[in-house]
């Protein structure tokens, strides 16, 4: 091993001749070795790569090494030098490398066999060439386009690789330029490419017309595809390109995919009406060709299922083409190509049946747009005569609707047959070790459901009779068994449930009555608990989707709810969950009906529920009980009369309160009861029930909260002492024990309950007088004196943030107390590094943010040392790489700057002390690549800071060397000082930038400070420049041109400022403009 290291050092000695065999063996070791040896090899190679002279070895390696991996490594060295230090190399060296690479590419690609064998190597060479081009073309290599076009004519293999190079170049310049080159440079390259495109185009055309080499033609089409989005339109529409594509290549299996993609790209172009004829012809001709290839009566679903990759891709590309064409040019084609439109729709229907979600999504997007468009022509209106009496569907009026009628009917059938799942429930174990069910919000499948639902709703509006007919037919097929399966039944019921509200109420009722009857019949007919459970779930799903129906039929609603109570005793898998989920859904939508006396009843139904609650929930699992309580809470929340509601709440919480009281009573006699695992578990459980009750009841929950509040805070304190005690006794590992976990859970649920209620409260005085003082005493004191940082609950911070956010300025007087308790001790937890205690970190800054937003005066009254601590912690925040923390930090800073400016006196001393410091820190993150995601916010803050200086809002001299400046010169002096300061900071940080680069950058920062987007892009350009050593030649940064643009921006800004009276200092306004 020592020998390896020894030998390796030879590689780094640039006075010796390079030992290729040695390098090869080290590279080999790095790729196939293991352990220490491999690590060593990697280190050697990295050191070599970073050596400034490394690139001088590249040619030797490429020439003499026989190992592909070594060659690849050499190209990586070259790539690095081109990206960062190209401009600093002597010209002749550049020319040398350039010629060498070109020669190598020509050599490797000229022979088909070599090119094929060394494909990977060749494509890396191509990439290196493009990197060189980005720096050389057009200035140092004006003849590049003629060169490559000329060379292409020498042989087909070479030509094929040149196509690949042109494709790469197009992608680099047009697709990926943002953030990799400055805006102005990207523009120059684009312009060069467009102006010289005719030669490239001729080359492509020549190949397409004459070549019999399939691989070459394929590459040419691929390259052409990249060009289509940007080439001048004339090349596309005023040449024979389109017809060549359609008639020569579309029907050739080898080329049809890429050809169709080209046609899609063309179809998607936004042009004026002058090319309408061309589009119509393109559409008609393509359709004619398609019909020959793919007869309209083919079963695409089956063909797709059996097809190979290329065939499946063709179906997908076809969907893309048709959807793009019809979306972009729908009205035109409807006018001129009616027959072809119908054929295209026919294809799309067939493709929509393919069982591949991604393809279906493509079609769905179009169908959704079409249905929405047709609907908006004559939107839904409430007719004066009820629909069920007229018995006609509302398709009649529009000619377009008639045109699409048959297609839409088929589409309804397809969507109903493949409706997606409306909700996803995930069973997971949470951090407290409990198995819980989570409703997923934002998954692919749910988005698909939303899109399908929207489309189906439009389709139902367009012809509800047809929608109803299809659904009833399919339901019949469930009953008669022809389509019976669990999956089919679910799908159908999801579809039925998705169009709730789309029909007129009476139609909906009639439809629903039929559906429920059929489903009940089905439930009776099928044997076995599995079958019955599925059918019952579907009935309950459908019923739950139609709250309007439920609200209109009390006895039906009551029967459904009683049925759900019955299901809460059912032990078959999933039935209890289904019952609870449906119950809460119905409770939310029909809550009022349970607290009113309904026709035929003596008391409101809630009375009955409350008197039998223990029987109803006796077979439920704790989590289901919580759901049940939340549901009942929604009902009670609908009772607006306080004197009726309060007794209801009391009875509602009776069971949990009895157990609670019992434990509390025991604990008063012997506090060790609160160390009993069962008691702690029960408390956590009761608190969870309370959390759900609070969530449902909102502010009125206060009567229950008041009942348990002080006891709860005492329990909190005891739990906290128990936990600290346990940690002190047996170390931090004890927190993993189930008992300690449950104790923390009690604390967390307590905090959650309090912050949930405060955020729902509507009486700040009440909260402030009765609930905050005991909370601060118990919880804050506990947080502060907790000896073990990890035992502090991060939720304490978020609870305080919630309180401040809700009570706003009312809490200002409490802020010093909150800060005293949490600020220093939390800061000590998070100022050692950027990672530990992530939750405390996040919540700490959220608290700071809420105080800054609502109780800013509290900041101003802090002693200077403490204020500095706050500001330092904010600066600390935005240096985090944890996105949420950094973002919060930037938000706080921006808001703080704005808040400060509202307090004239404080503002000036703030600027004097901190302005320059803040500026410096913000620049440090702007230029740090790990913070680029926050660039917009950085730009916003910097722009704001420059603006206040420019506008003279800073009334003190920022230059500590010149503390006193005459007021009329102050703004100008500060601007100059800040500009020089920024220039100096940048110059020190990036000595490789030229003076002109820095000058242009700094000027731009001021000129663009009223235009955040421009400002941000300007910063982004700057970030591109700092990656690269420019050397003396900065010509391709087009700095003068950039200066000109910035000057125009400056003029523009001045004009805007002048248009607002008073914006400009009277001293700045030219004489002639003053009267």
């Amino acid at each position, binding site marked *: 091993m020592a020998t390896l290291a020894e030998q390796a050092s030879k590689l780094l000695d640039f006075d010796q001749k390079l030992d290729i065999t040695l390098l090869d063996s080290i590279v080999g070791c790095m790729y196939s070795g293991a352990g220490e040896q491999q690590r060593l090899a990697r280190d050697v190679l990295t050191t070599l790569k970073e050596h400034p002279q490394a690139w001088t070895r590249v040619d030797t390696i490429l020439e003499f090494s026989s190992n592909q991996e070594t060659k690849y490594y050499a190209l990586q060295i070259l790539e690095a030098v081109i990206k960062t230090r190209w401009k600093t190399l002597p010209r002749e060296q550049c020319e040398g490398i350039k010629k060498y690479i070109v020669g190598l590419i020509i050599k490797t690609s000229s022979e088909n066999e070599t090119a094929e064998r060394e494909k990977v190597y060749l494509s890396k060479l191509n990439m290196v060439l493009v990197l060189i081009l980005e720096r050389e073309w057009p200035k140092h290599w004006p003849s590049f386009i003629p060169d490559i076009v000329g060379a292409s004519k020498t042989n087909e293999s070479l030509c094929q690789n040149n196509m690949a190079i042109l494709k790469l170049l197009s992608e680099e310049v047009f697709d990926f330029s943002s953030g990799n080159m400055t805006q102005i440079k990207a523009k120059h390259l684009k312009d060069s490419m467009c102006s010289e495109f005719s030669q490239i185009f001729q080359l492509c055309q020549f190949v397409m017309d004459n070549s019999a080499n399939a691989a070459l033609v394929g590459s040419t089409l691929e390259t052409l595809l990249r060009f289509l989005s940007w080439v001048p339109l004339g090349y596309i529409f005023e040449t024979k390109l389109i017809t060549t594509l359609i008639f020569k290549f579309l029907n050739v299996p080898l080329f049809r995919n890429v050809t169709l993609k080209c046609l899609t790209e063309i179809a998607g172009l936004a042009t004026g009406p002058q090319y309408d004829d061309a589009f119509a012809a393109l559409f008609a001709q393509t359709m004619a060709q398609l019909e020959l290839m793919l007869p309209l009566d083919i079963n695409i679903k089956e063909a797709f299922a059996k097809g190979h990759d290329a065939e499946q891709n063709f179906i997908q590309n076809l969907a893309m083409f048709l959807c793009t064409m019809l979306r972009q040019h729908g009205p035109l084609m409807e006018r001129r190509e009616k027959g072809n439109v119908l054929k295209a729709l026919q294809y799309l229907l067939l493709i929509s049946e393919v069982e591949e979600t991604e393809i279906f999504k493509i079609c769905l997007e179009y169908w959704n747009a079409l249905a929405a468009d047709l609907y908006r022509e004559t939107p839904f209106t409430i007719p004066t005569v009820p629909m069920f009496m007229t018995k006609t569907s509302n398709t009649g009026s529009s000619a377009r609707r008639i045109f699409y009628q048959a297609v839409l009917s088929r589409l309804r059938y397809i969507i109903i047959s493949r409706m997606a799942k409306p909700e996803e429930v995930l069973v997971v174990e949470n951090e407290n070790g409990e198995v819980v069910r989570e409703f997923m919000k934002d998954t692919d499948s749910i988005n698909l459901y939303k899109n399908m639902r929207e489309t189906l709703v439009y389709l139902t509006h367009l012809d509800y009779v047809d929608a109803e007919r299809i659904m009833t037919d399919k339901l019949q097929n469930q009953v008669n068994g022809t389509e019976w399966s669990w999956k089919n039944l679910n799908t159908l019921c999801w579809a039925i449930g998705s169009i709730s509200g789309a029909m007129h109420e009476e139609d909906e009722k*009639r439809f629903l009555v039929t559906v429920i009857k059929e489903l009940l019949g089905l439930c009776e007919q099928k044997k076995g608990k599995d079958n019955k*459970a599925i059918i019952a779930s579907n009935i309950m799903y459908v019923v739950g989707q139609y709250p309007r129906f439920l609200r209109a*039929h009390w*006895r039906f609603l009551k*029967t459904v709810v009683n049925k759900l109570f019955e*299901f809460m*005793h059912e032990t*078959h898998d999933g039935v209890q969950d289904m019952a609870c989920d449906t119950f809460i859904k119905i409770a939310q939508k029909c809550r009022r009906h349970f607290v009113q006396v309904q026709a035929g009843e003596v*008391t409101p139904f809630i009375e009955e529920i409350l008197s039998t609650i223990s029987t109803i929930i006796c*077979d439920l699992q704790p989590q289901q009980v919580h759901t049940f309580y939340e549901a009942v809470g929604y009902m009670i929340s609908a009772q607006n009369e306080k004197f009726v509601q309060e007794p209801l709440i009391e009875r509602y919480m009776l069971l949990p309160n009895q157990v609670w009281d019992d434990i509390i009573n025991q604990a008063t006699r012997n506090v060790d009861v609160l160390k009993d695992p069962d008691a702690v578990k029960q408390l956590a459980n009761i608190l969870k029930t309370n959390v759900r009750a609070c969530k449902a009841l909102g502010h009125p929950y206060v009567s229950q909260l008041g009942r348990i509040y002080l006891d709860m805070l005492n329990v909190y304190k005891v739990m906290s002492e128990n936990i600290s005690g346990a940690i002190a006794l047996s170390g931090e590992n004890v927190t993993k024990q189930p008992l300690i976990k449950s104790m923390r859970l009690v604390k967390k649920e307590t905090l959650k309950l309090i912050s949930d209620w405060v955020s729902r409260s509507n009486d700040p005085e009440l909260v402030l007088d009765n609930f905050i003082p005991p909370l601060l005493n118990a919880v804050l004191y506990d947080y502060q004196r907790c000896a073990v940082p990890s035992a502090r609950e991060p939720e304490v911070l978020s609870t305080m943030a919630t309180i401040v956010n809700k009570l706003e300025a009312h809490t200002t007087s409490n802020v010093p107390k909150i800060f005293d308790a949490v600020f220093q001790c939390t800061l000590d937890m998070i100022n050692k590094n950027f990672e530990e205690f992530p939750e405390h970190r996040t919540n700490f800054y959220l608290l700071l943010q809420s105080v800054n937003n609502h109780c800013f005066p509290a900041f101003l009254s802090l002693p200077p040392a403490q204020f500095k601590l706050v500001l330092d912690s904010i600066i600390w925040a935005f240096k985090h790489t944890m996105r949420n923390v950094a973002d919060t930090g930037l938000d706080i800073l921006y808001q703080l700057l704005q808040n400060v400016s509202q307090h004239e006196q404080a503002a000036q001393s703030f600027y004097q002390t901190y302005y320059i410091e803040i500026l410096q820190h913000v620049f440090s993150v702007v230029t740090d690549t790990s913070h680029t995601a926050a660039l917009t916010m950085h730009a916003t803050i910097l722009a704001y800071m420059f603006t206040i200086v420019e506008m003279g809002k800073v009334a003190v001299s920022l230059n500590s060397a010149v503390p006193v400046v005459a007021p009329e010169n102050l703004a100008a002096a500060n601007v100059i000082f800040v500009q020089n300061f920024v220039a100096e900071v940048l110059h020190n940080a990036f000595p490789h930038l030229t003076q002109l680069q820095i000058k242009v950058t700094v000027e731009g920062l001021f000129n663009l400070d009223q235009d955040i987007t421009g400002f941000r892009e300007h910063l982004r350009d700057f970030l591109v420049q700092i990656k690269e050593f420019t050397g003396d030649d900065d010509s391709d940064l087009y700095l003068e041109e950039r200066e000109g643009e910035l000057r125009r921006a400056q003029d523009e800004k001045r004009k805007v400022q002048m248009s607002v009276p008073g914006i400009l200092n009277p001293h700045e306004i030219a004489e002639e403009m003053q009267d």
Partner: protein
Amino acid sequence: MDNLIGSLESSLSVSTEPCSTAIAHPRFSQFKSKTWKINQEERRRKTLENQKQNRYDYYNHCRRLAESDFSVDEECLSETQEEMEWLPPKTKTPRAYRDQIMLSEWLDEVPADFETSWLAMPCPVGKRCLVVASRGWTRVYSKSGYLITEFQSFLPGGFRQSSDSTILDCLWNELKQCYFVLDVLSWSRVPLLGCEAEFRFYWLHGKFSEQPEFGVKSDKNRYPFIPLPTKSCTKGNIEDLLMMEKQSWSPLDGLLFYHKLGYYTPGVSPLVGWLKPFMVSEILKANVPEFYMQKKPLSYVNIQQHLKRKNVKEKHDGNSVEMLAKE
């Protein structure tokens, strides 16, 4: 709409046991269910008959339950009749104890031999559970087979030093923090499932009176276990049960009625009946304290009133809504 509500109430179900107490009492319900085609008396007779004819390996079933050993094939069980629906759990899953508890039917028709062949048991409010004391731990499972909790108790098999096993059918009363014992499936490895109810109760009470420490909370017996008394079903006894206020198990949720000859079978059995206290006055014509009568839900009507109301409704309901729905 009435039809729809009727069939919703009667035909929407997952389990199909007739007279299950999860749904409304047939006489107090607004709709007659179609599932009660065979009358209760007849079903009782059949169950007793089946019980005699079928020999089931109660010993093994009990052992499996007690030792959570569910690996044995069920070949030996193939002869059991469908009505018994009597399959032990197949795999050792967390829910292996699902559906093992014997549940009651509503007492709809009062049996002819009610006073001589049936026993009444007072039943407090609580969460029904199966208490399995085995291998040194006492574990509590819900009706649907979820493990609710585990602790140490004096029950044979329920504490660390014990190698016995015992299974009880209990009610957990959260408020009183105790377990009321309804029935016994197995005691100290003696399977009692295949024994008649009267014998099981005799055994249970014998064991509990021998060892009163079962009923006392202590370090080694985390919660008290309190067996519920049984009495023969005379009107006087039933009125007494309802009257007694000072008992640990009052107030009552209802009364259970066990047929003296019934075995312990999982699921709903027609040989166990159930009534809420307020129903007792109407079904058994016994006196019920006012305290219980007040608990009668207001929407519950007695049979006569209910029938009257229904007739009135049908007469003047040419129900317009219904017509539309039929259209």
